[in-house]
Structure formats: C-alpha cells, structure tokens
C-alpha cells in the first residue's frame, strides 16, 4: 500500500466510482429523468445536493446514472480494442514476414487519422447510440495494443520456453494463446487502463457535441451540453460533471501508473 501510492489511489477512486455506478438505483436520491417544474435550475441545497438542471431534474442522480453509461462505454470500447490489438499484434509478431508487414502498415495508416475525425465521420453515417459509440471507439483504438503485443512477442519468441514448446510439437494457436499472450499481458494492461481513460474522454466529447449518448439517457458529456446555455447562470451544471470526468480519468491514470510500477 505505502510502496505504491498510485495504485492505492487509483483502486480507491475507480472502486468508489464503480460502486456508485453499480448501485445507482439505491444511491441516487431522485429518479434521474423525472421533470420537476417547481425546481428549475435550483442551486445546490439540502434537498438537491448538486442542484437541478433546466428541466428540474436532480443533477446528483443524473451524475450517478451517468457514471453507469460513461464507465461501461469506457470498459467495453477498450475491451474491443484490446482484444483486436492482441489478436492482430500476436499474429504480426508470431508469423512475421508479410503478415507482419500487412498488419503493421494497416496500423500505421490508422494512426494517421485524427481519431475524432474518423469517429465523427462514422457517427454521421450511423444513428448515434451507446452501442455504436462503443464499437466505433473500440475499432479505432486497437493500434497501440497491437504494437505493444507485437513487440513483446518478438522478444518472447526467442526465449527457451517457447522453443521447447515448439519442439514438443505444440500447435501455433496453443503457443500464442497459452504462452505468448499471457506473458505479454503486463504492458497491455497498463496501456488498456490508460485507454479506458481516453475512451471516456472521447465519449464525453462526442456526447457534448450531441453526437454521442442521446438525451434523456444521462452521460457526463451530455449533461455538460446544457452548461453552454447556462454559463454564468448555473455554475453547478458546468462544475460537477466535469469534476466527475476529471476524477475518473485521474483514477485510471493513477491505476495505470501503479500497474506499471507493480509489473516492473
């Protein structure tokens, strides 16, 4: 605990956020979508700890339910990109030759695209929905993981235990899946934790532009849409969702830093 303060801080922050997301119905004081005409834009008070929005909905409750959306988009999007990255990186590193050239050139090309441009272009073609956002962020973010896994496998491939496995006649799938990939997972986990942070940032940016999670479903990004029109009138709508994003990103960054130290 004391040796790795980053890891502790990360686990505490992300743990609390996840608990809030899981137990959202128990924790939130109000229904996040109930409109209350008597309390439009009321400032933080004892009954509404974080105030209300322009429809009188309780901000705290919307933030807690927003945690569900934002965290699950981050997790699933990164799940997709990490699985893709491991698969492509392992193939490239293990087989080398033209397979490697093809996959890594593809990664280089994908890295040329400003991610946000590519994502917005796809969003323009599809209906913005939570599942599309997860898939798009996942499909455009696998390159880093692929490069990492490829590099790890290139060096692992030469080690004795892999050569022993090969001379025993193990199948390629068995060597890659059971021996190479598990040994390359350390750096991938560090990378993935950072990836969750940037996926959450991407989602909040998209939702803020109105092209991500669609209201009335609350996400931290789309709660902030309203802050543009209430600038100077209702500071709480700007402050709290942004702080929630900041704290979550900070948590994942700490977690990643801590994992890096722990895994060497």
């Amino acid at each position, binding site marked *: 605990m004391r040796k790795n303060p980053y890891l502790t801080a990360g686990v505490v922050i992300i743990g609390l956020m996840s608990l809030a997301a899981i137990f959202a119905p128990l924790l939130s004081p109000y229904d996040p979508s109930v409109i209350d005409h008597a309390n439009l834009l009321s400032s933080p008070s004892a009954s509404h700890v974080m105030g209300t929005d322009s429809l009188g909905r309780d901000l705290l409750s919307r933030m807690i339910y927003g945690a569900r959306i934002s965290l699950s988009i981050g997790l699933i999007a990164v799940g997709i990109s990490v699985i893709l990255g491991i698969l492509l990186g392992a193939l490239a590193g293990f087989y080398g030759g033209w397979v490697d050239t093809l996959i890594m050139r593809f990664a280089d090309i994908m890295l*040329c695209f400003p991610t946000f441009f590519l994502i917005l272009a796809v969003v*323009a073609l599809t209906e913005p929905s939570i599942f599309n956002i997860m898939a798009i962020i996942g499909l455009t973010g696998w390159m880093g993981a692929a490069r990492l896994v490829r590099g790890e496998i290139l060096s692992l491939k030469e080690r004795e235990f892999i050569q022993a496995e090969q001379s025993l006649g193990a199948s390629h799938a068995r060597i890659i899946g059971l021996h190479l990939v598990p040994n390359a997972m350390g750096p991938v986990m560090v990378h993935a934790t950072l990836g969750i942070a940037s996926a959450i940032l991407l989602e909040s940016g998209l939702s803020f532009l109105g092209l991500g999670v669609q209201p009335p479903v609350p996400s931290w990004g789309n709660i902030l849409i309203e802050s543009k029109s209430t600038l100077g009138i209702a500071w709480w709508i700007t402050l709290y969702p942004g702080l929630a994003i900041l704290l979550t990103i900070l948590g994942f960054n*700490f977690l990643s830093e801590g994992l890096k130290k722990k895994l060497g």
Partner: protein
Amino acid sequence: MLRYLIKRLLGIIPLLFGITVISFAVIHLAPGKPAAVEQSMDPRVSAESRARMAKLYGLDRPLHAQYIDWVAKMARFDFGRSFGDNRPVLDKILERIPVTLAINISSLLLIFGLGVFLGIKGALRPNSLFDHSLTVGMFLLFAAPTFWLALLAMQLFSIQLGWFPISGLTSLDYEYFSPLRKFLDICWHLFLPVCVISFGSLAGISRYMRASMIETLRQPFITACRAKGLSRGAVIYKHALRNAILPIVTIVGLSIPGLLGGSVIFESIFALPGIGRLFYEAVMTRDYPLIMAEVVLGAVLTMIGNLVADISYAYADPRIKYGKK
C-alpha cells in the same frame, strides 16, 4: 541524408493509398452508407442532394471503379461540391484553414516552449517539492477534458472578470479597425482558446521532457563536460538540452492528430471559423463530400507532420540516418 529522404518520401505512397482506401471504405461500407441514404426517407437529406450524391459518386457503378474515379478527381484537387451551398469543397476548406493553423501553431509553440522549460526544471531537481507538485499538476491537467476547461475559462475570464470575449474571432466593429488593431483584436479573441488547448498537451510533453532530460544527464558525455570544467548552465542548456530535446520533436509531431481532432470541439465551443467547426457542421448536415475531403485531408496533414518530425529528427541526430538501414 538524401537516401534517407528518398526512402521516407517513397514510404508515403502506400500510406496515401491506405488513407484513401480506408476513408472510402468508411463512407461506402459503413451501415447507413450514402447509397442507403439515397433510398431512405431520411428527412435530413433532401431529394436534391440525394440525386447530386448519386451522380457525384456514380453509386450504380462497381466499388473499385467509384474508388479510382474518386482518387483521380482528388489528385486534381477536385473534392466535389458541398451539399449545403454547392460551393467547391476545397474552397470551403481553404478559407477555414488559416484560423485552425494560427491556433494550432501558436499552441504547439506554447506547448513546446513551456513543456520543455517545465520538464528541465523538474529534471534538475528530481523528487523536490517543485518536481512533485509539477507531477501532480500535470496529472490533473492531463485528466481534465479540454472542453470542460474551456467552459470554466469562459465562465471565469469572460463572464465573471470580463477580460476576454466569450467567443468568436473578431469584434462586432472589426471592419472599421486599423490593420494593427485588427491583428490585436484577433489575438485578443484567440488568447483564451490557445491557452486552453495547450494545457491538455502540456502535461504529456513536460513529462516526456523531464524523463528525457534525466536520462541524458546520466550519460557519460555529460560527466565529461562537467569534468572539463564547463559551467552548470553550459552543460545543461548547451550540451544536455540538444540531446534531450530530440525525442520531444517526434512527440510534438505525434500530437498533431489530437490537436486537429480536438479542434472540432473547441472551435465549436468558442465559435471560431476553423476546419474543426466546418467538420462539425458537415457532420450535422451530413455533407458527405465535405466529410470525406476533411477526413482525407486530416490524415494527410498528420502524415506530413510525422514525416517532417522524422526528417528533422534525422537531420538533428546523425545516428538515425547512418545507424539504421
């Protein structure tokens, strides 16, 4: 150097091919592709634009023919016409580029200058109070969403203090200003956006600079410099800095796609007429020719940025061009 240059320039060809294929595939193979929009009753796409679309892309022809046609047109700088106002897409993009370029170049300079400075300060006294507060501050900056920082900055500096305009590029009576005043007016409007977008990337650059400087200071040639009696300043700013700064050049090159992508959000918030806001408008109105042109241009700009960074790196560090084949 010439051989390296030629090799790198030839490397562009497969990248360009890949960039165009992916952009084409995204538009034509994604669910809800233009061809489907043509048949759908989507009210956002008018019948007129649907017809223009079918004609423009020859949507009845096989995909590879459409692709070749599209690339051949782009090679002649013909990106088609916007669905919105029927003007050439290239004209619309070119008139928006100066604003985005001005913002991004000034923020790159700010990030680079301040990041290198803070990184050196941290590296010189590792684990000091200054170094630790720098690390914590950088973690916080790195975690804050840029558009949220923009909203907070607007709230504080534009609304509460009234120091800067809330949005836009020019004042209302801009037309009547003298040239100098016009320039100052634009600077005054761009100050807040440039500061806000720089802060996000500052964190990464200064951390890299710190690590790179600490690494360089451990090298034997630094010990040699100290041993021959050079002053502390000469060792750090003349000998160590030149070596430590090299990796940062590449990282600045790598931050271009992020800056371009980020311009979509902050140009919308600050109502600045740059290519980011143009892209946002294109997405909202489903202006396909404009979307495709901007995706390709964004990727090509990134590619050129990386190339320039790599070449200047090779120019500054002879080990690159002679070391690797």
